[in-house]
């Protein structure tokens, strides 16, 4: 028999009547997504835990203001992304400046132009591409993206949201999302190329 799964909206209506079971269900439905978004954006578990809590505390508190103009998950992602960005900004660590970042992004174009042949690592064995050390390098590389590029990349390519929804979550135009995504991808490709082609 088919089990009827309540929609987010149905759960929200019950939460507004202080139904804790509905709240449990809604939180269980999204906690892994929020935690992973935070973990990828912040690079460590402790900060991800804080963001997870802040997000759902803010969601419960702000539920009265949620009018359903966007879907609940879009709104939730927005609250979560903002909590993560707030956390990033509180760190004292210096971020790469925009111009340093763009120099890195476009360095491959110079190399390609210089006439030297680029190395193709895309068909390296999966065992090498997916081992623990490679994963650490992938996480470090995300961590070196300037914050807005990081938010765009994690939402679009790690979480798999469509570009239009990423735009809605971050309050950017779709064109801005696409251009930031492209640069973030180029930067990460460079980083992984350096890592996978090093002897």
């Amino acid at each position, binding site marked *: 028999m088919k089990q009827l799964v309540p929609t987010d909206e149905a759960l929200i209506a019950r939460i507004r009547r202080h139904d804790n079971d509905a*709240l449990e269900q809604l*939180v269980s439905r999204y906690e892994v997504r929020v935690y992973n978004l935070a973990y990828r954006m912040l690079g460590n578990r402790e900060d991800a835990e804080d963001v997870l*809590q802040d997000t759902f*505390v803010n969601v419960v508190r702000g539920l009265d203001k949620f009018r359903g103009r966007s879907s609940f998950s879009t709104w939730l992602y927005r609250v979560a992304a903002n909590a993560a960005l707030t956390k990033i900004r509180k760190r004292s660590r210096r971020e790469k400046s925009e111009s340093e970042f763009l120099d890195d992004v476009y360095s491959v174009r110079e190399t390609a132009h210089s006439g030297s042949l*680029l190395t193709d690592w895309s068909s390296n064995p999966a065992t090498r591409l*997916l081992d623990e050390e490679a994963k650490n390098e*992938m996480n470090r590389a995300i961590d070196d993206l300037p914050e807005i590029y990081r938010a765009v*990349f994690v939402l679009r390519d*790690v979480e798999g949201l469509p570009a239009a929804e990423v735009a809605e979550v971050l309050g950017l135009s779709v064109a801005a999302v696409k251009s930031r995504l*492209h640069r973030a991808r180029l930067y990460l490709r460079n980083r992984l190329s350096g890592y996978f082609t090093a002897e």
Partner: protein
Amino acid sequence: MDCQEIFEELSEYIDENLARQKCRELERHLETCHNCRVVVDTLRRTVALYHSMPDEEVPEDVRLRLHKIIRLKPEE
């Protein structure tokens, strides 16, 4: 299209958002340009690798604490 122009379109290309005409031009370029081809293949692979990263599980104690913190008070 030259390498410079191609370079800016690569994300739209791998996301399959390019108009058919532009897509054909780009692919014609790729047939003859080693470096652009390497950038496309490794860019696609980069995106796929990140997309396939397994989810981190929420630690059980963190989950329990979260559910406790947000419990609603019964309606007055």
